[in-house]
């Protein structure tokens, strides 16, 4: 069993137009920038992107949006100081936004990974973001019924990985990676370092290899660590 891919190009070769892709990261931490660059080069379009943010500046998800490759984005926080690519297309109606509270986003992604059909969450009860959704009072508290979010691919950035797909992360760059890894048909991990099988302490593996299909080593560069 060897999940190591020699290049990002090869790892992303089979992504078709219309794919749904989860992309890890919060702010710049844990964003697999190089994998997104490779997706820009690969050319797939009509994508649905599931991520916490919608990209800023010219990099990452913003680079995909700027080239009009994204038809829909599912995220919690698209508006940022420099989210111009998103802002323009959202306001002109060219890009569909499904806005999901951050905790619901994480929990709905997890639900897809663990086989839960739907769950009652307290978040967003009584707000615009629960409009039209099923609600229920349970033990005196009000809940909204939310459904799983899955994807065809997950792009995640981890610190170290091995040929079996086991991953460990670094500090707050962990964020959405471990839950997204469980919820996609094909999870591709960009790791700063590939290590030998057996080098990761089994007690400290965060993402067990069963959730990962491909691992690509992308050495940390200064700017993007």
């Amino acid at each position: 069993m060897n999940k190591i891919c020699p290049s990002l190009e090869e790892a992303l070769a089979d992504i078709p137009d219309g794919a749904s892709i989860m992309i890890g990261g919060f702010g710049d931490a844990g964003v697999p920038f190089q994998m997104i660059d490779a997706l820009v080069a690969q050319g797939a379009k009509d994508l649905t992107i599931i991520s916490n943010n919608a990209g800023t500046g010219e990099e990452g998800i913003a680079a995909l949006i700027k080239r009009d490759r994204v038809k829909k984005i599912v995220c919690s926080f698209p508006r940022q100081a420099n989210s111009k690519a998103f802002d323009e297309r959202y306001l002109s109606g060219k890009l569909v936004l499904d806005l999901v509270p951050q905790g619901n986003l994480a929990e709905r992604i997890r639900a897809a990974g663990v086989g839960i059909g739907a769950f009652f969450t307290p978040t967003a009860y009584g707000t615009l973001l629960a409009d039209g959704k099923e609600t229920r009072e349970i033990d005196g508290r009000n809940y909204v019924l939310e459904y799983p979010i899955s994807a065809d691919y997950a792009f995640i950035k981890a610190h170290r990985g091995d040929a079996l797909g086991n991953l460990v992360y670094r500090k707050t760059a962990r964020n959405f990676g471990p839950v997204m890894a469980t919820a996609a048909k094909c999870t591709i991990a960009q790791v700063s370092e590939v290590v030998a099988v057996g080098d990761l302490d089994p007690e400290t593996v965060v993402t067990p290899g069963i959730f990962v299909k491909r691992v690509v080593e992308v050495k940390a560069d200064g700017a993007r660590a």
Partner: protein
Amino acid sequence: MSDTIQLLTRQQVAARVAADIPDGSYANLGIGAPTDVADCLPAGVTIILHTENGLLGMGPKPPAGEEDIDLMNAGKQYVTALPGASYFHHADSFAMMRGGHLDYCVLGAYQVSATGDLANWHTGAKDAIPAVGGAMDLAIGAKSVFVMMDLLTKKGVCKLVQRCSSPLTGVGCVKRVYTDHATFDITPAGVVAYDLVPGLTFEALETLCGFPLLRKS
């Protein structure tokens, strides 16, 4: 009349909030003004700070040159991790909040209603680009939700209202509101006002709010 009284600065409001968080608490300080609360925590007390992007035991910002791109808070500012900290993924992090394990969270607000409804994610403007982040999870998550805000907008409109006109973040979730004019407890009996700044009368404050307030018993 507001002209003649000395309102609290943002730092003074932050200090009031900090003084009400007991030693040994777990707290999440939202993005923006509430971040100042961390700087006002008295020496010698242990308040363990949570940031929802996956860290418990958050410390102050690092010295210049020691920033780590993998170590930031929910406001995307560089931070540090204190001894005894732990990292975890987003679902586990929001579990801490949504499961009611945080003792306090401190949030900013556009409006708070007399029944504790919170509006802090969306101005309600039709062409606004919405963004919610973790606001709705924080609003329903902590054991005590504190709001920290100016009582009036720049145009002089009171942000403590009988009923929010801006889209809600959470229903009946706010327990206490710290402002530059006074502190307000949201109680089943009504809104209790106290700690008014010197020179501000109860009646003047009630006039500013435009609805009846209760005195602290």
